């Protein structure tokens, strides 16, 4: 119960932004809420109260309780969310510079943060589900935040419908688990769920988790979600909200693996990792490359979870938050100073040291250069793999991922105008100077990226625990990718930018997967049309019966014509018939 305290600051700041029409103060209110929630998380860490339940409501003998906890991964996730949200709000103070947009932006962001924190502390499936839905709907609103862009609203719609499928699956799983034992407390479910029902519930929840974390075949909403403002991408669609699926699987891991979901997790993760690497290497959209990279990170986490390597997954979970948040913020600075240009070939001004230092650090961390966080996270996942073909495949993916992320860096760097001020080239100057709040957030995060690995190594007492061969192999893979990227995109020795392969035809936006989804939508629509036709015909039959009755009535009317002779004749005939009938009987 006391963990719910952490939800309060952002809930209040959301309500304040909703009720008071003050555009200027909205951002500061949210920032204060963020700082307060970091304080509350710290306080909760020092005074950890353990799992607590409140009785939400009860029906007959059944009671529905909301249980919260702060153990292990819950606390980690909560702290990451509080930290990232606050930094992103700081960043947004500079980024969101249209006055009329501020209030609704910070309102939605605050409600998102509140939902995310509720999700992070939930220790029973109903609490988790409430948070799960809240982050889904705020993600929908934030993707479609720029409502004048049709593409943004379309992307939001697509995202929410894919997430909706996941919501229904997870809800079904929860209902099945509840019906089995009348409890959806996670610890209880882990210990007691058995049989076919549990298997089915595990399957539903696992697939639901894949939708939220944008895994194959539900991945396509995430690159499209890049239509949202960059702070949103930095917070929701890289470091917090998309991790909800990973988190859900992680808290239920023993149960899910016990039901044999490991193979599904590894399979979906591997497919996602490959498709993400292929796609990221072929697209030139500055944010979509990063989005595919996020899909890849999530895939690696799922692989680790499927192999029952929870520590490895958590390690990547932590470090990924920092480097992915940072690189998105860098991307935001680059697009903002380039008049919202999103093609990496046209991005100017990356050479300025103020921009370049955090960019290089973020790219190095993402690629996995020793001793940054990305190295430890990805390397931990790779070394959890004991299977040779799988290991080789992952190494290949590491080469490609290093290649595409250095391509992300080298293509703008190799631009001839990269050191010039873009303001000269563009029609309206968006403000070449980067707002201080954005830089502040970026540098805090840069520091966090640099420090995180060091803190972690320190807490484990040195580097002795790293298997040497694996580390060398991993670093070699990264360096091969770096070298290839340097030769191909900086020295321009290769065929140039287009690295479109047969695989990307299957996986890219507008590719085969989209066609499949389109077919499903068309099928449902067609079913609707068929039902509508059926409905119309059935209704016609019902109406026809009504007309038929009316016709009989009109025929009967003709007998009542007011002629006395006619009536008399009818009476006589009737009497004769009656006599005959009675005599026969």
């Amino acid at each position, binding site marked *: 119960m006391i963990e719910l305290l952490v939800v309060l600051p952002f809930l209040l700041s959301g309500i304040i932004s909703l009720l008071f029409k003050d555009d200027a103060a909205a951002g500061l209110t949210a920032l204060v809420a963020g700082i307060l929630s970091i304080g509350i998380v710290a306080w909760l860490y020092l005074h950890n109260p353990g799992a607590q339940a409140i009785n*939400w*409501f*009860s*029906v*007959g*003998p*059944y009671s*529905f309780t909301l249980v919260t906890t702060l153990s292990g991964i819950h606390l980690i996730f909560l702290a990451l969310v509080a930290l990232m949200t606050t930094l992103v709000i700081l960043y947004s103070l500079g980024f969101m510079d249209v006055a009329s947009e501020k209030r609704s932006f910070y309102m939605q962001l605050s409600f998102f943060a509140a939902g995310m924190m509720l999700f992070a502390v939930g220790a029973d499936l*109903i609490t988790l*589900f*409430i948070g799960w*839905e*809240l982050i889904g*709907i705020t993600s*929908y609103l934030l993707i*479609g935040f720029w*409502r*004048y*862009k*049709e593409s943004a*609203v*379309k992307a*939001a*719609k697509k995202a*929410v*419908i894919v997430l*909706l*499928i996941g919501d*229904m699956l997870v*809800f*079904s799983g929860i*209902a*099945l688990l*509840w*019906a089995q034992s009348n409890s959806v407390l996670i610890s209880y479910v882990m210990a007691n769920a058995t049989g076919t*029902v549990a298997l*089915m519930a595990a399957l539903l929840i696992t697939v639901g988790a894949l939708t939220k974390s944008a895994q194959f075949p539900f991945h396509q909403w995430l690159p499209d979600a890049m239509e949202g403002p960059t702070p949103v991408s930095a917070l929701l669609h890289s470091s917090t909200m998309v991790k909800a699926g990973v988190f859900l699987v992680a808290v239920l891991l023993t149960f899910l693996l016990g039901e044999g979901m490991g193979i599904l997790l590894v399979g979906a993760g591997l497919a996602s990792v490959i498709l993400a690497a292929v796609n990221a290497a072929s697209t030139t959209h500055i944010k979509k490359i990063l989005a595919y990279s996020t899909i890849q990170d999530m895939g690696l986490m799922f692989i680790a979870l499927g192999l029952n390597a929870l520590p490895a997954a958590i390690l990547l979970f932590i470090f990924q938050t920092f480097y992915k948040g940072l690189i998105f913020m860098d991307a935001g600075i680059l697009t903002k100073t380039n008049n919202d240009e999103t093609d990496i070939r046209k991005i100017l001004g990356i050479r300025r040291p103020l921009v370049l230092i955090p960019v290089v650090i973020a790219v190095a961390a993402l690629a996995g250069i020793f001793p940054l966080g990305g190295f430890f996270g990805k390397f931990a996942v790779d070394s959890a793999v004991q299977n040779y073909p799988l290991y080789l495949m992952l190494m290949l993916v590491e080469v490609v991922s290093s290649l595409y992320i250095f391509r992300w860096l080298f293509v703008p760097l190799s631009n001839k105008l990269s050191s010039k001020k873009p303001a000269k080239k563009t029609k309206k100057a968006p403000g070449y100077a980067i707002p201080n709040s954005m830089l502040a957030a970026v540098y805090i995060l840069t520091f966090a990226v640099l420090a995180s690995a060091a803190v972690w190594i320190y807490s484990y007492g040195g580097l002795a625990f790293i298997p040497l061969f694996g580390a060398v192999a991993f670093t070699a893979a990264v360096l091969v990718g770096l070298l290839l990227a340097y030769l191909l995109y900086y020295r321009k020795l290769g065929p140039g930018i287009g690295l479109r392969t047969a695989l990307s035809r299957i996986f890219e936006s507008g590719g085969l997967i989209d066609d499949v989804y389109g077919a499903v939508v068309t099928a*449902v*629509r067609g*079913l*609707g*049309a068929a*039902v*509508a036709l059926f*409905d119309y015909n*059935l*209704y016609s039959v*019902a109406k026809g019966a*009504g007309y038929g009755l009316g016709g009989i009535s009109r025929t009967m009317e003709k007998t009542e014509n007011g002629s006395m002779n006619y009536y008399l004749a009818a009476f006589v005939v009737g009497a004769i018939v009656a006599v005959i009938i009675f005599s026969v009987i």
Partner: protein
Amino acid sequence: MVPIVLLIIAVNIVGVALIAFLKPEYSRKIAVFVAAVSAVGVVRLIIQLAQSGVQPGVVYIPYLNVGLSFGLTGVTAVLLLLSEIVIFVTAASGNVEKTGAKASAILMTLFQIAAVGIFTSQNLLLFFVFWDIGVIAMFFMINVLGGENRRAASINFLLYELFASSMLLIAIIMLYVYTPAHSLNIGYLISATGIPSNVELAVLISMFLAFMTNMAVFPFHFWLPDAYAEASTQGSMLLSGILTKFGGYGMLLMFGISGLAIHYSQYIAAIATVSVIYAALMLIRQKELKRAASYAAMLEMGIILLAIAAYNTISINGAVYGMFAQGISIALAFLAIGVIKSIFDESNIDRLRDVLSGARSTAYSFALAIFSTIGFPLTAGFIAELLIFFGAVQSFGVYGLIPLAGVLIMAAYFYSIISNCLLLRNKPTRAIGIAAGSQRFGFYALSLAIVALGILPFLLLVVLRL
């Protein structure tokens, strides 16, 4: 208990007379006042129920053993509360179409008599009488105040409802003849034994036909889209918010009266599932906001029928909670759609754009109503869906979850409506008005109820447990 119910009915009759004889400008005020007085009376009734329980009624036809007896249970208290909230908000938010204020107020007050009577009467004959009063009031509501095709829609509605009431009458007569004590007292009927099993089956079938027609369950749903779409905003609010709940309450009574019903619960659940999927597939064909909302109402009633068929503690609570939640949310949806129509003069999904900028509170209310309908957490609809589907799984296993596919289709379509009509600012539709203060009151009242019941479900469950 009897005096208060009679008092409420008397106040309503006086209200009808006053509205009929005074000028139209007083109509709405009187209707609101009468609704407020009735609401106070209902609250008093519920307090009395909490303190002392049901009181026996007064016998008025001793020969037929038909009594003017009124009583209240937890279930009917909830439904009564729903009727009062919806009628009060409907009266207070006023006539969006701005025509026929007098007729609308009279019919609404008349309908209130029916609603109060039907949920309190402890006798099936009384139940039947009030049922027909309600049907007739709604018939005129559509026929006099409706849209272009109101005549066809109202006749259609009346035919279906007449079919329902004749079926109900047949069941009542059979029950009267074949029960040992020749009584129509609901309390007696629930505990009565000794009805021949073939008669019981006949009673069950005719009652089921009657109530499923009223609930607009496939294949007896044809009256619903036309009636909802053609009725005035106030008419749609009452139809969707209260009238279909007569059938829902009847279904619950049917399961209470006939022990046989439970044997057929799987078939009833199958019908409900078909109805849900059918409504969802019809829903995605609709281009008119009001028609889309009508099919959503049909879909929700299918889910409630599923919950009643599951017939365990949790699903029955879910069914009653669901009727309440669905009643207030669909009434809010229809109110918002009516206001959108009056503000933008447009209700076609393909042409309506950017309601959010033109009419902020209306857009929020519509979205909230939709979220509650699709069962989004922190709205009343979520608690209902939670209870209903948990209960359905308890009775029917995995098959109880099939209707979620219908909910999924409905939610997907509504998300695209929200995206295109509410959010998208590309080529916005021009607003030619604003929401009146009274309409905004309606939004706030119903939104508050939806959110409050989503966060604090015990508010309603306390009444339900009485």
